[in-house]
Structures are given as structure tokens and as C-alpha cells.
């Protein structure tokens, strides 16, 4: 079911800014339009552009927030999520736990 839904209306996760919009929906109870506006403002883009893979591919690599392809040295996992925390001004549970165990 994932593929037809993604093709019909999905933001595409880390192909674009879908993960960032999802985080604002879940952390701040923002409805879709408000969550997209919030993320767009943080990225300096329009709400149309944050779902555009052509724009977001290079921007994600530049911002070090994770890309779908295997790029050596590109942050993944906790490292990418720590950059996401700063970018959209939110706290992510796994990053909080990482800081706790590393005392950083």
C-alpha cells in the first residue's frame, strides 16, 4: 500500500521535507498547512518547494539532515537528527537520550 499512497499524495519523507513536516504535526499538533508553513519558513522556501525533490535533494545534503542515497560522510541517524533539531527548533527523543548517555 505504501507505493500508491506515496505516488498519489505523499511528501516522500527524506526525499523532500516530509519527515520535518511530520515532526511538527506530532510535536506541536500542527495541522498540515500550518506544519508545512512552519517548515517552509525555517528552510526559506515556499510550501510548494518543500515537497519538491529537485530542490530538497541538494538542500538536505547541504544542511546535513539526511538523504536517501548512500553518500559517504553524509550524516545519518542521530547525527542527522541533531541537525534537524536545530533546523526546526524541536527536541528529538533519541537525540536527548544520546546526549544523556554521552553527557554532551
Amino acid at each position: 500500500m505504501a507505493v500508491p499512497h506515496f505516488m498519489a499524495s505523499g511528501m516522500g519523507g527524506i526525499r523532500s521535507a516530509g519527515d520535518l513536516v511530520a515532526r511538527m504535526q506530532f510535536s506541536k499538533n500542527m495541522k498540515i498547512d500550518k506544519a508545512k508553513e512552519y517548515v517552509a519558513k525555517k528552510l526559506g522556501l515556499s510550501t510548494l518547494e518543500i515537497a519538491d525533490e529537485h530542490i530538497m535533494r541538494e538542500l538536505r545534503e547541504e544542511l546535513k539532515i539526511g538523504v536517501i542515497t548512500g553518500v559517504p560522510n553524509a550524516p545519518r541517524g542521530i547525527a542527522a537528527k541533531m541537525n534537524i533539531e536545530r533546523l526546526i527548533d524541536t527536541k528529538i527523543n533519541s537525540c536527548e537520550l544520546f546526549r544523556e548517555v554521552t553527557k554532551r
Partner: protein
Amino acid sequence: MKGFYTRMGDGKRVIMTKEQIINDIHAGIADAADMAGVPDLKADEVDLLFEIISDKNRIVGVEPGKEVVLTYDIGQLDFTGDNGNSGNGIDVGRRESALLHERALGGDTFELAHADYSIKPVKPIISNEMQAMEEIQSEIIIPFFYGAMPNSGLYYAPDGPYGNPADLMREFKIEEAMQAAEFTAEHLARDIEYVSTRMVAAGADGFNFDTTASAGDADFVGTLKGVEMLRKACPKTYIMVGMAGESVMGIHGSIEYKGEVVAGKYPHQQVKLAEKAGANVFGPVVNTNTSKSLAWNMSRSVTFVKECIRVAKIPCHVNMGMGVGGIPMWETAPNDAVTRCNKAMVEIAKVDGV
């Protein structure tokens, strides 16, 4: 006869005329409006439904800029499960499955799941699940939940400690049946607190309660109480409550949550209870009638869900799997039907996610 290729609720191809499709759209809307006491769709929305259904292309989609967030239930079981879960039967690891959904399948979120996908069987293997969550969180980027069905049916005989209400009612032991349901709700809430708080302690972004109220009103009350306990223990965790059907079955009949009887609640009423419990996202469900057309099922689902979205203060991600959200009840749900229901939910019901 000039007609349009469309589907029945079981997925079978049929040819319908414009008049037949329009009639089924109106009938589906009327059924939902009558059942739930919600407004009919407007004339321009009926026109858009017809336009979506009669589109000549196999696949349809929303206009650029109208994309929404895609969340999941059942986690990696879509790859690993058997056909009972509509799974592919591929013995791929849970880590690999999560990363594939992130990097290859366009998932905006994903989740970890137990093979039985229920709260109760997670308890004895909680350490195993916590370890898997810690490992995957170190590599994944998208919000990664733990997901499970409350599934309070597992607490009734012969699987659990309480009498089975169906058996007790057959023996006219009504009081005992109601008491068993009440005990189950409390037990379920305690188990939800045990499992969910530990998964958050292992780094989960949140918890997805899937197919809530599948065992009726006591299942719903137990889940809402469990959500409340999780929210109190973990104020910042992400909580999603997805339902099992458009109406909560009254297995108990009068069990209440915060002074309200929950049996018979429809999506626009269910969401208010999820909000009170502390959910961040609500997942309305509308079941498919296999004897009716795609036009009937899609219109009926959109009518229920549109009102839910209108009254909700939290975002809503509508459930759109096989047999829900207007989609045919068929294991390999036809893509033309899936994408049509998707577009209708986004552009007419204005859902925040799927």
C-alpha cells in the same frame, strides 16, 4: 452503453454509467450523513468525486502543493508477515525494513512492530523490543514509532484471565459480561503504560495505537486511559490513535470515558475523546462494504472523515488500507482505486495525512 471502468467494494472491475455513479455517490453520502448525523457533501464536492472516479487514467494524484504526510501501521510486517497481515512473507530484518521504507518507499514516518502486533505479547519480550528500537534509532532519520494494536480480545478467555463477554451474554450473564469488559479495560491500560513508556525510554519518537476499539467500547476506554498514562509519564512523546471502524461497537454498552458513553461514537466524536486523552494525531477509519461500488464507498468514507477533520483540533491521518477509507476489501488493492480514494480524502475531506 457508454460507461466508465470502475470497481466494486471487493475490487472487481465493473462498468457504470455516469448516472449510476452519481446515484451511488449520493447514496454513499446519504448513508454516512444519516448514520453519524453529519452534513452532506456539497454539490461541487459531488462533482469532484465524479471527476476523480471517472478519470481515464489508471493512477491519479493530488495537485502539487497539496501533498500530505504518510504514516504507517503494522511496521515491517508488510514485508515479513504472512497473508493474514497481507505481508509479503519475506524474512527481512526489522532494521532493514525500516530503512527501506525511509530511503526507498517515501515514508514520512515508520514504526517497529512485534510479529503479533498487539500490546499484550510485547510484555515478555520488552527488552528485546527496546534493544531493537535503540539500534534502529541510531540509524534512522524519519520519526520512528513503536506500533501495536491494543487488541483487548487477548484478555478474554480462552486467551486471557477474564470471562469472554460473548460467551457470558449467550448464557444471559449480562452483569458478568460487563464486569469482564471493565476489568479488561483497566488491565489493558496498565499494559499500555508498561510497554509504551519503556519503548519511549529506548528512544522511540512515539507510539502508534492501531486498530483501536477492535474489541469494542471497553477496548477504546482501556486505550484512552493508557494514552492518558503515557502522556502523563512522557509529556513530549508523539502519540497516534488509529481506529478500527467508523462506529465503536457496544460490547459493554455503557462503559464511559470522562463521563461519556463511548459505544456508538463516530469519527467526529471519537477524535474529541482522543484529544482529551492526549493524542497528537488521530486516525479515523471507515470500513468498506464489498457489495457496494467504489463510488458509494468512497463518498461515504469522505463524508464521515470530512466532518472529523472539521471538528478536530489535532491533525488527522485517515486509515487507507485494504478495506478501509473507501478502498476495496482485496489483498492486492487495485492501484486505480487506492489513488482515487487517496485524492478524494486529501482534496475533499482535507486530511492532514494518510
